[in-house]
């Protein structure tokens, strides 16, 4: 049994911090895109127009019932066949956005359905269009209602981003694997990035709560 030697971790600390920054960036991009997909998906689903509803339902079912790793590989290997060549990090963002988006649609839809009918009727009686009612009246209270669930989904998305190392996207796990394969210090490296992932989750959680306090904290 080898002696533990964290010297290697300290030696390559800058690389690990770079990995933290890249994972934060990757996750933030994934979160923002999945929120956008979630809101647009719910807006399409709400129209009651089958041509808009059906693709949303198919998308949610497809994504929620297949593994993320397979979705990632599919994008990574299938897109080039269609002539679309993207670097692994962009592919990872798209995969995270699609996967997180499908879950966000389900969560946000629950929030929208929790809005009392009277709110929508009040908007309609004032002459607002259904798009305006969704954007100006329904959306903020709906997001507020499901914000804790959405936040934990986004933390999950952040942690899932480590899977993107399997297509060599630039992020923390990928950097850790590189250091490990060059130094064979598996325990030290993975012990350290466990702590770093905790830090990342905490940072994302803090950011999400502060956004929640700013935008969803009206008295109720």
């Amino acid at each position, binding site marked *: 049994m080898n002696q533990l030697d964290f010297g290697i971790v300290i030696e390559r600390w800058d690389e690990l911090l770079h990995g933290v920054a890249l994972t934060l960036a990757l996750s933030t991009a994934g979160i923002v895109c999945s929120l956008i997909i979630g809101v647009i998906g719910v807006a399409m689903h709400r129209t009651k127009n089958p041509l808009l509803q059906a693709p949303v339902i198919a998308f949610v079912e497809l994504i929620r019932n297949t593994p993320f790793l397979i979705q990632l590989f599919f994008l990574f290997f299938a897109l080039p066949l269609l002539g679309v060549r993207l670097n692994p990090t962009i592919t990872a963002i798209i995969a995270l956005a699609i996967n997180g988006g499908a879950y966000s649609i389900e969560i946000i839809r629950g929030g929208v359905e929790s809005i009392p009918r009277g709110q929508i009727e*009040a908007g*309609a*009686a004032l*002459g607002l269009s259904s798009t*305006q009612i969704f954007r100006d*009246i329904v959306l903020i209270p709906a997001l*507020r209602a499901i914000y804790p669930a959405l936040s934990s989904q986004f933390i999950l998305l952040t942690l899932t981003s480590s899977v993107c190392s399997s297509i060599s996207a630039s992020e923390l796990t990928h950097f850790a694997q590189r250091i490990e394969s060059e130094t064979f210090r598996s325990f030290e490296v993975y012990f350290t990035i466990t702590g770093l992932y905790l830090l990342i989750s905490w940072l994302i959680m803090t950011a999400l709560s502060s956004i929640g306090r700013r935008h969803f904290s*009206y*008295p109720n």
Partner: protein
Amino acid sequence: MQNTSPLNTASMSVSENETLIELKNINKWFGGFHALKDISLTVNKGERIVLCGPSGSGKSTLIRCINHLEAIKDGTITVAGKEMANDAKSIDSIRREVGMVFQSFNLFPHLKIIDNCSLALRRVKGMQRDEAEVIARKYLDRVHILEQADKYPAQLSGGQQQRVAIARALCMEPKVMLFDEPTSALDPEMVKEVLDTMIGLAQDGMTMICVTHEMGFARKVANRVLFMADGQVLEEAAPDEFFSAPKHERAKAFLGEILAHN
């Protein structure tokens, strides 16, 4: 104390010949339930109509048809000369003429009072924020609640919220106001402030249709009381006549119920 003598009718004259709302042979079904049975009603400009009747009689449904919160199966609805068709454009043009106040206020909880009132001015009438806020403040002042403009709905009492809801509807400068049991969800001590606001509107000549069981209000401001039961208008009379000598058996029974404890 609330004064229950009739208002000065000179200041509340009704234009006999200017029809604002005309409902012709309205039928409404909820699944197999025939909620409105062949109802016709004409409302002239400046008229104040009180709809009353037992629960489930169709009174709320009737006024909700006027701004298409409920779709009718057949019949015609004409508001301010516009006949309602089943397309968004026609419905929107009628909704611009019709203000509505709900039993449960339905203020938007995430918007400050001033934004609750200015939202539709900005979105529907395309006004700039400052222009819309001038109008919103004018109507908030009219319902005596301007000092609460920067609060959120949840920070106001029920009576205050309902007055804001009235101001919000007035901001759109509707030709007619619909009230759907505006005081039923209020604590007793808050009923008066809302009724006083509605009486003020009546004095200013607003055309109103109110679903309410506030008989004092009905006596004071209504030109006509319509008694509904089972989706039909069973009796239509001036308030004094209706309250002192109801003709229909159902109306007698209903008044007996609601006046038993007054």
